[in-house]
């Protein structure tokens, strides 16, 4: 029984690993191919099956004038927009979540839960519903096709995630912890950043990770709200597609786009499993 279980367990894990890793290997392999190696017959292994070339990668950093696509600038644009919007969302979202978790608000029929729901409801609508108001809003204040405009829009998208995760997290931090901090001579702000915040690091990491992921992978708003001045990575990657699909540079750009998320995932995984942070509060 237990042998069968072990066998099944490893069988499933192996299967799943192959399922997840294979596309990456496929993309890595493809990124070193040229037109000939992609289109003539199915090839897998460099040097044996086909002659590897760096052309697919070179295209990504060459300027358009020399026949390249230059994703370097969109890459840094994406990093800037994602990080700035995530950071602001986390800061504002955490403060909002703490207030929603600890204080009771009453305004007419509106209570804390309604306010929390209001935040989350921003994510319930299909993005296309928001696109027109966003477009008009940004064009009115003159931030269409600019990094700042994108940051503003992304904050609207990401902050609900931060609020949602952090409200849930703060609700699990015993209120007595804040009270003890107050009794021990902290004013409410000090109680927040000296006691509550250091004990909320796991929640902050999770919220931050979600913000970064959702910010980084957004194509829709980046596509609608930018034209020529500013471009983000997802839009640029899609724009690679022309009359001949350049599978090699598409693979290469897909790999560099996903790289930051993989790095973030590994760092966070290490950090979360290293300390028993999640068990700090019962």
């Amino acid at each position: 029984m237990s042998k069968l279980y072990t066998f099944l367990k490893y069988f499933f894990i192996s299967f799943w690993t192959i399922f997840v890793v294979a596309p990456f290997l496929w993309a890595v392999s493809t990124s070193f191919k040229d037109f000939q190696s992609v289109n003539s017959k199915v090839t897998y292994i460099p040097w044996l099956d086909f002659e590897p070339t760096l052309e697919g990668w070179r295209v990504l950093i060459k300027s358009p004038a020399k026949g390249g696509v230059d994703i370097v600038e969109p890459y840094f644009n994406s990093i800037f927009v994602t990080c700035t919007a995530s950071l602001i969302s986390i800061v504002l979202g955490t403060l909002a979540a703490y207030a929603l978790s600890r204080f009771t608000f009453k305004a007419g029929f509106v209570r804390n839960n309604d306010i929390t729901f209001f935040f989350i409801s921003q994510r319930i609508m299909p993005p296309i519903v928001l696109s027109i108001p966003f477009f008009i809003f940004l064009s009115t204040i003159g931030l269409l096709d600019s990094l700042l405009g994108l940051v503003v829009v992304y904050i609207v998208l990401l902050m609900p995630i931060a609020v949602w995760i952090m409200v849930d997290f703060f609700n699990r931090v015993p209120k007595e912890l804040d009270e003890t901090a107050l009794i021990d001579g902290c004013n409410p702000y000090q109680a927040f950043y000296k006691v509550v915040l250091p004990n909320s690091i796991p929640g902050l990491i999770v919220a931050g990770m979600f913000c970064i992921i959702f910010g980084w992978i957004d194509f829709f708003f980046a596509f609608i709200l930018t034209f020529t001045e500013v471009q983000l990575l997802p839009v640029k990657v899609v724009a690679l597609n022309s009359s001949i699909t350049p599978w090699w540079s598409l693979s290469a750009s897909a790999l560099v786009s996903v790289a930051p998320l993989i790095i973030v995932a590994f760092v966070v995984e290490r950090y979360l499993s290293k300390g028993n942070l999640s068990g700090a509060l019962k």
Partner: protein
Amino acid sequence: MNLIGEKISYKPDEQFHLNDVSFNFKKGNLYTILGRTLSGKTTLLKTIAGLLNPDQGSISFEEKDFIKIPVWERNVAMVYQQFINYPHLNVYENITFPLEQRKLSPEQIKKDVDEALKTVGLVGFENRKIQELSGGQQQRVALARSLAKKAKILLLDEPLVNLDYKLREQLREEFKRIFSEGLSQDTILIYSTTDPQEVMELNGEVIVLDEGKVLQKGPAKEIFENPSNLKVAEISNDPPMNVLKGSKNSKNLNFENISLEIPNHFKNLEDKDYNFGIRASEIKLDENGEEFEIELAEISGSETLLHLKRGNSKIIALIEEVMNFKIHEKVKINFNANKFYAFGEDEKLVSSPYGGTNG
């Protein structure tokens, strides 16, 4: 210079959490607040700490209006029944936290913390993480943090209730020592509990609280000997004092077809109906006694608690040895008539074996 509360009421919802509570706490004394769960003990302590603002009434300390001073400037210390420490700090940092908040000099902090660690017996645990400690040790850290602060008002909210039996006994003993050695004459210590035994052992001034109302105030001995009414008698005894509805005539005390000789302290009592009170420990097994039916027998440690029934009366007897009884078995018991209390039909104390009456 005292901590004085006057007519404090707090009613956040339909029910009173505190109802017209007044007190006058003097420095250097120990006060215990005795009451069942939800009687308002925690609310009262939080009000003194400043975490709650009462709807009505005033609190003053050292001639200052306490209600106008925010929590973080009140210089109080509080230990919760849950073990509340700062999980991101180690033991030493936990205890220094309030001292650093007050910006004391490093030498002073070190001295105070070492002293507090010594008092609670946690020397050598300075660098441990809070999560690595047992419940009892966590509570000691919380206590050390409160002691190191040298706060003028020290609040302990059922500090032992979440500990297991043995640890509770041990810490209770240590608390007595800590309170007698470790506190200055400047400190007011307020200790809340549901456990009458703790109240008697700590032997301070007692406030009996029920449904937010003060039922009785006085020294522990006085509460034990002369509970002012039936409610206090129930709250201040574990197991609660037995109540038997009966009457007194010129010759006997009568209840449930039992007649007892009138004890000396009842001699001057008016002949009428009473609620008689008798502690579980004043009921003994006796071959020549009265017959009762056993409803339940609990063995706890070296004692047996017998839940007995006769007619409409249910009583609990505390037998000081471990015995096996069968449920529904009949036993014969004898009451120590000299330890009978008489409460009037309005539940107020009329006569006690210790000579106290209630007006």
